[in-house]
Structures are given as C-alpha cells and as structure tokens.
C-alpha cells in the first residue's frame, strides 16, 4: 500500500496512550491511521507543525492527540467546527484542523459544520466517512448505505425508516463560501495518493488564508463492517464509492484571496478604551446637598409617545445631579396594548426595589395610563396629565393635578413626538427636584439621532414658556 516514513508532526511513541506505545489504538485495517499519517506528512511539507492545532472529535479518533505532535484540543460530539471557529478568531496564523467522523459531522454536528462553512472560516476539515458509528459499536450513521446492517438497523437501512445516506461533500458544495470541497477514497493505493494531494491542498489553502476547505474521505471500518481488512477495502470500492462519488467538487483556490480572513481589528489601547467609554472625562459637577423627597415616578403612555426615553432622560438628570436613580421599563406584550410605562425612582439614599407599584408622581401621556394608575398614586402625590389627549379630569382630591397640553405644544414647536420632552421639562419645573438646565445638558448626549437635538431643546424652551404663563 503506502510507505510511511515517520513524520515530524507525528509522535515517535505514543506516550499519551499508555501501554503499547508503539502501535496505534485503531483496529487493523482502519482508515483513521492512514489519514492521520497523510495529514502529518502534509504538515511537515508545509512546515507548519508548530502552529498547528488539531481539533479531535468524539468518535474513534477522539484520541488523535496521542499521535499528532501539534497543539491538540478534544471537542464535544459534533462541535469541532465551533471550537475551531473560536480558535481561528483568537489566533490569526494558527493552522487549525477539524477531524471528524460521520456521526460527529453528519449526525449530531450538522449545524456547526454548515455554519462554519457558510462563514467561510479559514479552516481545514477532514471528514472521515466510514458509513458507521465506530466507537460506540457499529450503529447506523447518517451515511450508512441502504440495506447496510448495523446494530441499530439489524435488517438493513431502508428509505422508509431512516431516509437516504447523506452526501456531505454535496451539501457543503451547495454553500457559496467554501473555497475547496473534494471527496476522496482510501480504496486503492492510487486513491490514497489522491487523498494525500487533497489533504495537502486543503491545508495549503489555510496557510494562504483562502478560507474553508473540506475533504471527505471514504474510509474502511473493518471491525464494525464485520469484514477482514482486505475485504473491507473491496467493499468500500464496490459499495461506498458508487453512492458517494469520488471527485473534486470545487477548487477556487486559484481565484480566491479572501481578505476577510484577517479578522484582527485595530486594537484600542487602555487609554483609548478609557476615553471611548468616557471614564477619563473630567468630574461632573455634583450639586449642592439639598433634601429631596424620594420620587417614585410612573411615566406612562402608549407606545411611540417616548415614555421610555422620557424616563431615561429623567434618570439621566438625576445621575448628572449626583442623585441615585433607577429606571425600569415595562416591556413585552404589555407594550403592544394600551400602555407602556417606565418606573423611575430618584433618591438621595440607596434604592431598593426599582419597581414602582405605588407612585408619588404619575405622568399620564394618555387616557388608559390615567385609568391604570390614578388610584395607585400616594395621597399627596402629583399627577401630570397630557390634556391634549386626555379629556377627563382627575377624580381624586388628595393629589395635585397638573394639566398640560403637551401634544399640542409639541406640535406648535414642530414635532408632536417631542411631547415627552415637554412633559419631562414640566415635571422638573413643577417638582423643582432637579434643575431644568440639567436636562439641557443631558439631552444632547442621550438622543441618538443628532438631527433631533435642536428641536428637542426647543421643546424645553416651550415647556418653560408655558410653565411661566400658566403654571407658576
């Protein structure tokens, strides 16, 4: 068959194996040993032994690390492509091999292989198709042939029961991103030579950072096929090869130089990160100590009225003034119904629960909000009502009611969506808990779409105007 000179990338003795350190743990006539040696030779030829990491699967080749004198990692069943993806994204120049069986890759691991291939990860996958689960004692694999008897198909695989043998090379070839897809066989010495070439090409592609290469290798498992080694080689040629055509499916290695495979982005130094995160900004003015009453605010309205942002800005003002604050949204299905609301608590002390069940400030941007929360407001609390939309009056006499047509005022400024800002500004003016200029300061930083900053600043002016005329 094939002459093996000892490769550098292969250990001389298999210390990790324990007893019997000269021979592999594979059965006589098994395909894994041959494939290992071809890989080791290719690694030598490409001179990449030191920077190679072999990802071994769960299956008979779980112990590939007994043999490869390279970095080694043993992966959970089917997930080597995910493990390898991450390693690839850590070490740009590593040569990373996924070595997988047909149960591992084509059964449990279909998700991982497809997505690694689809991302075009610069990886090399060697997929060993022996049409059976070897390690667990000869059960059906996704690649098991029709009629093939295994421990779990005792009368032979049928279409009706298990579907058809799956063609992995064909599937990978249906994905745009891979650069190289080939199926080879260990059936004859000539085919082994072709396998050697394919293995080297698939690794060469990775060295040149060209992207994702997969070689499917048809290999014998004499033990579980219940055959002698020679008989197994014959069966492989006569039965496996017709179902899994041995051919090159794709080789774009000449055309493709995929720049994307340098995944490194410009690294920010510590100082740059601290600046970017705003940690190095100079100290904000912490306001003079003054006693404030703890504010338990419910900011409520329908979706689209900006009650969440209104609440965030309120909490931002508190933060700016050195107060403690919490903001908690109601979210999910509730948002799609009548009211969306945020709970905001502002306090000099540390804040326990961020949930406001019983507010002392209710901001009702629409009618359903007033209906929902009016009864819950603490006696002595304040209710601010958007009187543009809410026609009803507050029925309680033990709270302070402030009516303000914020939607109309916002429309006058030129953007009805600014009603939340007018409401918030009015709250600041009425409650005197925080300075209106604090809002002017935090607003530009908190609004993501910068083109809306100016008009929102005008909302604050408008609120002030209205407050002076009607509310003070």
């Amino acid at each position, binding site marked *: 068959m094939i002459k093996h000179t000892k490769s550098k990338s292969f250990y001389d003795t298999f210390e*990790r194996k324990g007893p019997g350190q000269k021979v592999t743990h594979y059965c006589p006539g098994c395909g894994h040993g041959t494939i290992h040696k071809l890989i080791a030779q290719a690694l030598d030829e490409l001179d990449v032994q*030191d920077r190679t990491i072999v990802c071994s699967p769960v299956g008979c080749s*779980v112990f590939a690390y007994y043999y490869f004198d*390279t970095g080694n990692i043993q992966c959970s069943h089917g997930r080597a492509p995910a493990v390898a993806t991450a390693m690839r994204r850590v070490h740009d120049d*590593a040569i990373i091999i996924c070595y997988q069986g047909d149960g591992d890759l084509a059964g449990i691991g279909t998700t*991982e292989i497809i997505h690694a291939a689809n991302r075009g990860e610069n990886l090399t996958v060697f997929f060993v198709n022996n049409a059976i689960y070897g390690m667990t004692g000869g059960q059906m694999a996704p690649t098991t042939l029709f009629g093939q008897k295994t421990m779990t198909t005792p009368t032979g695989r049928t279409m009706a029961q298990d579907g058809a043998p799956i063609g992995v090379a064909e599937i990978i070839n249906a994905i745009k991103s891979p650069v190289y897809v080939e199926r080879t066989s260990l059936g004859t010495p000539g085919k082994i030579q072709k396998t050697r070439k394919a293995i080297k090409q698939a690794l060469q592609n990775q060295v040149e950072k060209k992207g994702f290469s997969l070689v499917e290798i048809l290999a014998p498992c004499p033990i579980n096929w219940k055959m002698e080694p020679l008989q197994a080689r014959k069966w492989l040629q006569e039965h496996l090869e017709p179902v899994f055509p041995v051919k090159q499916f794709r080789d774009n290695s000449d055309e493709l130089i995929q720049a994307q495979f340098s995944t490194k982005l410009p690294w920010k130094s510590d100082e740059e990160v601290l600046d970017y995160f705003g940690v190095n900004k100079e100290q904000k003015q912490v306001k003079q100590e003054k006693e404030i009453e703890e504010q338990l605010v419910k900011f409520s309205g329908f979706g689209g009225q900006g009650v969440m942002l209104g609440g965030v800005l309120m909490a931002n003002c508190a933060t700016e003034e050195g107060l403690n604050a*919490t903001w908690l949204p109601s979210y999910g299905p509730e948002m799609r119904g009548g009211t969306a609301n945020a709970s905001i608590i502002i306090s000099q002390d540390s804040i326990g629960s961020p949930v406001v069940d019983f507010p002392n400030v209710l901001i009702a941007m629409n009618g359903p909000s007033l209906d929902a929360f009016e009864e819950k407001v603490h006696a002595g609390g304040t209710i601010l009502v958007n009187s543009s939309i809410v026609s009803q009056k507050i029925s309680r006499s033990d709270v302070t009611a402030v009516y303000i047509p914020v939607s109309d005022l916002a429309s006058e400024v030129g953007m009805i969506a600014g009603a939340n800002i007018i409401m918030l500004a009015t709250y600041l003016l009425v409650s005197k808990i925080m300075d209106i200029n604090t809002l002017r300061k935090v607003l530009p930083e908190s609004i993501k779409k910068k083109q809306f900053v100016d008009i929102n600043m005008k909302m604050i002016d408008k609120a002030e105007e209205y407050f002076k005329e009607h509310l003070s």
Partner: protein
Amino acid sequence: MSKQLLKGNEAVAYGAIMGGATHFFGYPITPASEIAHKAAEIFPATGRFFMQAESEVSVINMLYGAAAAGARSMTASSGPGMSLMMEGFSYIACAELPCVVVDVQRAGPGLGNIWPEQGDYTTVVTGGGHGNYKCVVLAPNSCQEMCDFTYRAFEIADKYRTLVFILSDAYIGQMMEPVQLPTEMKHGERKDWALYADKESRNNLVTSIFMNQKIMNDVNLNLQKKYRKIEEELVEYEEVDVEDAEYIFIAFGITARVCLTALKKIRDTGIKIGLFRPQTLYPFPKKRLNELAKKCKGFIVAELNAGQMADEVELTINCKIPVLRYNWFGGTVPSIEEVIERTVADLGGK
C-alpha cells in the same frame, strides 16, 4: 470620575472589556440580548471580537475553543439558551477552562416568559451539566454590580481555571442605574497550558476524556481540591441590619432589593429584621449563615422560585432555626407592600 446611566445588561459589556475580555460569542434571547447588542458595538470598536453564533450549543463550544486558545471570552443568555449549553459547561469544567457566562434569568420552565425569575438557581449553582463539578456563581443586584462582577469575573476565572457564572435576572438586566465604570483596564496573561499555535505551547493538550479510571479519579480529586480552595477564598456577601436582628431575610438579585426596601418599613413596626445577601452563590456563605443562625430566631428566604436557595439554607444550618419560604414564580416580583404584610403577619409586629 463620573457615573453613567446604564442598563444592567450594558454594564456587563463595559465591565467585560475593562476586565480583559477579548472575545464575545452570543445568540439572541430576551432578556439578555442587550448584552450582545452592546458587545456587538463596543467589542469591534475597541479591536476586540464579537460573533453571533448559530446556536447556544455553538456558543458554548466557541467559548471552549477561545478559552483553550488563551483568550478571555464570554457569552450571555437566558433560560432555554442556558439549558442548551449544559454539556459545554461540563466539558469546560473538566478541561478547567476559564470563561464567563452571564445568565439573565427569565421565567420558566419551557419557553416560559421574559419576566424575572430565579428558577435557574439550582442548575447554575450545581454547575448544570453532568459529572461532579462546580462553577463560581456571582449574583449581582444592581447595574453597578453587573459591571463590577463581570469585571472581576475574568480574574477569578483565570486564577482558578474555572467557568464563572453571573446569575442575574430580567429586572437587574433591563433596569438602568448610574454606574461608575472601573478606572483601570485589566488583561489576561499568557497561560502555560493554553494553545497559542506556537512552538512553546505545541505540547499542550486540552481535553476532558480520561479513559483510565484511576486518572479520571485523580482529575476529580483535583477538581474537588480546587473547589475547597474556592470555598475558602471566595465567599462574599452583604449584610444590612443583622447585628440586632431577630429575623433575617436571605435573598439575592432583584429579590434582595425588594427585601431591602421592605426591611426599613418592617423595622418601623418593631420587628427586628435584617437582610443577608449572598453575592457568591457558589461558594455559598455557609460559615456566616451558621453564625447568624446562632444569633437569631429565624430566616426568611425570599426568592423567585420554588425554594431552591431555601433548600440550600436549611441544609447549611442543619435546620437549627426555622426557615420561612417566600416564593414567587412566573415572572411576578412581589410588591414591597406584599412583602411587608406577609412578614408582619408571620412575625407579628405591633
């Protein structure tokens, strides 16, 4: 230095980068998604790496790979995603790989809902997957702690070669508070066992298979030794008014905050109550709880689950004093008023 108003989930992403995280792998799930959103923004912007994977199964195996490659890596998820990652947690524990997983708990079982619960307590505190292992579990109860605990988690993970869980919940993740970011950046160092794809590390092997029973036994004994050390060195908790307390709330995360507000008002009724908040759920503050059990009449374990931590507390103090169980499920967080009423009714305030 100034504070910034941040969501708990956002604070995690900031704390991570400042704590030296270089790789984030995520898969969307409410209520954890903002962590991935923020990471997708600030990891690449600072030259770190973000990837949305195809599933949580892939995510946890990516952490396995990244950690094995020597990088400080993390993910964030919730209920169903946590369940999918269990096999990976077990591999990571056995291979002793350092990484960080944030669980922003939602209600379960099943698809459940996206409101807060603490029903993952037992799975996470016991490690989740198969075999005898533990992972460090930190339980933040504020946006500040979301940042700080994530920041520190990577040091702990590296030091003990362990997975560190941040066990949070939908409210702590979704709420906003002023957060002071750390002022100093941390970075991981080269690890002598990791795979760097170079000559020096060529002989390294990351694995969790040990076919020889004796060796597997030794691997387990070594892990157990490490856990004893962690139990010795890492316990953290916060106490409020426990010195004169006759009764003590034991709670973590959002529930601890509800209890904190309730506590002040319950004290006004004359009941001497305190609050004990474990900040590490593994290691569990066993020693301190036993001391407290000697000084007071009873514990009230308040949690958003069926009494999972209460079981642990009873076991810890060997049922020396009564342990009342206040439990809520399904995403309900009790109001302060409810907790006060119930406590006063149970303990008989004036």
